[in-house]
């Protein structure tokens, strides 16, 4: 067991996968010599060379599309979008091609590939370096979408993603990169895609979250326990698509109350799907309205620190929302 932060866990996962399988390669802007703008690929270029750890031109469609071609050819590319905000030039490749290659070819072609994307706010990145745009991808049939919240999950899920026969969008919350260290099992431990994690068991309400919100929700749960005697169950979804509906519904069956939390905008955000599933399939268990706590409906995180603070969720806002729901 090593104590790692999420950034280190991601780097080690890539290193081990590059080592394990000669078909694995990494490509993206500045991933080579510089080691990535966040350092996620540091050292890999020197170790595996400039072809397997490839600095691409500044062209996201090319990164996604060439990765798809390489996957057709038999490689297992890990493509990086420098920021999730900059994945839109690649949207056509991701949605038209990558998500549906297997379906449209009736299983003749599968695309084992990963697209890693740093996302999320709270890092003074303003409108275009802060987006939580997972909903575009969670609503795309044929993609898998993963968003880890701990170093162990980051490593284990990235390994699972690399080995998955289908394309996986891998969302890394920038604010969590160096937020904390935690134990990560050594070696080849894979965390399966599609399985949520009950990060904290509880009985009075369920908080559904992922990524950085896991950290915030756990803090909020501590406060609720300490100050209110409320035991919140924190469910870290980890995989957003395919969603672990079973774990979600089991938690609601237990607590009767569901708070869905994400940093992304509310209207049409991923939380809508979670809420809609609960509303439809756990109707009889609900002791209060399925409640969503989400980023405000503005087109991006504004830059000035006071505006950014206004935008961002945090433990205090979760506590407040939870109190409202518990009191219902």
């Amino acid at each position: 067991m090593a104590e790692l932060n999420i950034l280190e866990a991601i780097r080690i996962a890539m290193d081990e996968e590059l080592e394990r399988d000669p078909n694995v390669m990494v490509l993206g802007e500045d991933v080579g010599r510089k080691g990535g703008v966040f350092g996620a690929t540091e050292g890999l270029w020197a170790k595996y060379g400039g072809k397997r750890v490839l600095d691409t031109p500044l062209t996201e469609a090319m990164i996604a599309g060439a990765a798809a071609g390489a996957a057709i050819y038999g490689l297992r590319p890990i493509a990086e979008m420098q920021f999730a905000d900059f994945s839109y030039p690649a949207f056509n490749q991701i949605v038209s091609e990558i998500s549906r290659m297997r379906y449209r070819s009736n299983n003749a072609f599968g695309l084992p590939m990963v697209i890693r994307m740093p996302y999320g706010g709270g890092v003074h990145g303003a409108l275009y370096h802060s987006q939580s745009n997972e909903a575009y991808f969670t609503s795309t049939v044929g993609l898998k979408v993963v968003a880890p919240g701990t170093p162990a999950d980051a490593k284990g899920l990235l390994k699972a993603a690399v080995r998955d026969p289908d394309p996986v969008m891998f969302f890394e919350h920038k604010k969590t990169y160096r937020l904390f260290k935690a134990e990560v099992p050594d070696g080849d431990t894979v965390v399966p895609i599609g399985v949520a994690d009950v990060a904290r068991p509880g009985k009075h309400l369920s908080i559904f979250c992922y990524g950085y919100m896991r950290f915030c929700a756990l803090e909020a749960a501590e406060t609720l326990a300490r100050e209110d005697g409320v035991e919140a169950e924190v469910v870290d979804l980890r995989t957003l698509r395919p969603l672990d509906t079973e774990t979600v519904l089991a938690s609601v069956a237990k607590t009767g109350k569901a708070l869905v939390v994400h940093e992304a905008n509310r209207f049409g955000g991923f939380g809508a799907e979670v809420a809609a599933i609960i509303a439809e399939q756990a109707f009889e268990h609900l002791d209060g309205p399925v409640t969503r706590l989400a980023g405000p409906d503005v087109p991006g995180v504004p830059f000035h620190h006071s505006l950014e603070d206004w935008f961002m969720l945090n433990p205090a806002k979760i506590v407040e929302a939870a109190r409202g729901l518990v009191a219902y």
Partner: protein
Amino acid sequence: MSAMANTKVAELGHKALGLTDADVLAMYRQMLLARAVDERMWLMQRAGKIAFIISGQGHEAAQIATTWPMRPNQDWLAPYYRSIASAITFGMSPEDIVTAHLAKGDDVSSGGRQMPGHYGAARYNIVSLSSPVGTQVLHAVGIAMGAWVKGEDVVALTSFGEGTSNQGEIHEAMNFAGVHKLPVIFVCENNGYAISVPLDQQVGGLSVAARAQGYGFPGVTVDGTDPLACYAAAREAHDRATRGEGPTLIEAVVHRLTSHSSDDDQRRYRDPAEVEDLKQHDPIPLFASRLAAVGLLTTELEEQYRAEVKAEINEASKRAEARPEPDVATAERWVYAEEGG
């Protein structure tokens, strides 16, 4: 190369290109076959058997000749919706093609899931094609990148129209291929129209080939009705690619003999005289008369080919029609890989 590619080879001149008499006759026969399959699709469309057809008529010489140097089971094709003849060179049989147009359950391209014209088959190294134009070009580049990363000898060929050449992805693909001298051949089949929009409203500078030099590799314009000119360009491109010298862009100037698709009527936007003149640019009689002029194609041989091709497409259609329809119970499958799949 540019000069050679632009000039009609004297007499037939195929031997100078390394082609035997048998080769050029085989190319011609394959043009006939592609045309026969294509024409049959229109008949079946009019008969209500297939819902839609998008045609390769007029593009056959360019397609067969540019794919001719490609090595079976080694090189790759990322085609477009007019690539009926290219797909045949890569191994798709007339029966495969009719089956796909009929959307039968065991169609190799998609099991009846995709529209006609969406060629693809893992078994023939043909990448599955979608509808948004140009996306396949990056796949070809990605295959070439994969081969380059692995140090393997593979050439990827991709084709697309001149309207499509303006899509941003094409730029990104060509630039990247240029940077790393990837083994890829870009074939632009310039038929002068993107549905109704003519070249001068579509392509700044009017030449697609001219763009290649902006990426650091050669671009050549060839008469796409002349299979030998196309072959010469493709042969050179393939040789360059396997020598590690990088990509080539071939712009084959062709004529779209039909409307854009069975949903279109080109008389609405094309000059009647221009439509009338199209017959003059049909690559099949053009090549036939050249082959006849040098004594390679006799009337008997022509008749024999036509009879064979007709029998082939008749047989193919019969067999394709007898194939099973897709099973609705499978409609939900293969969104993701399945256990044991």
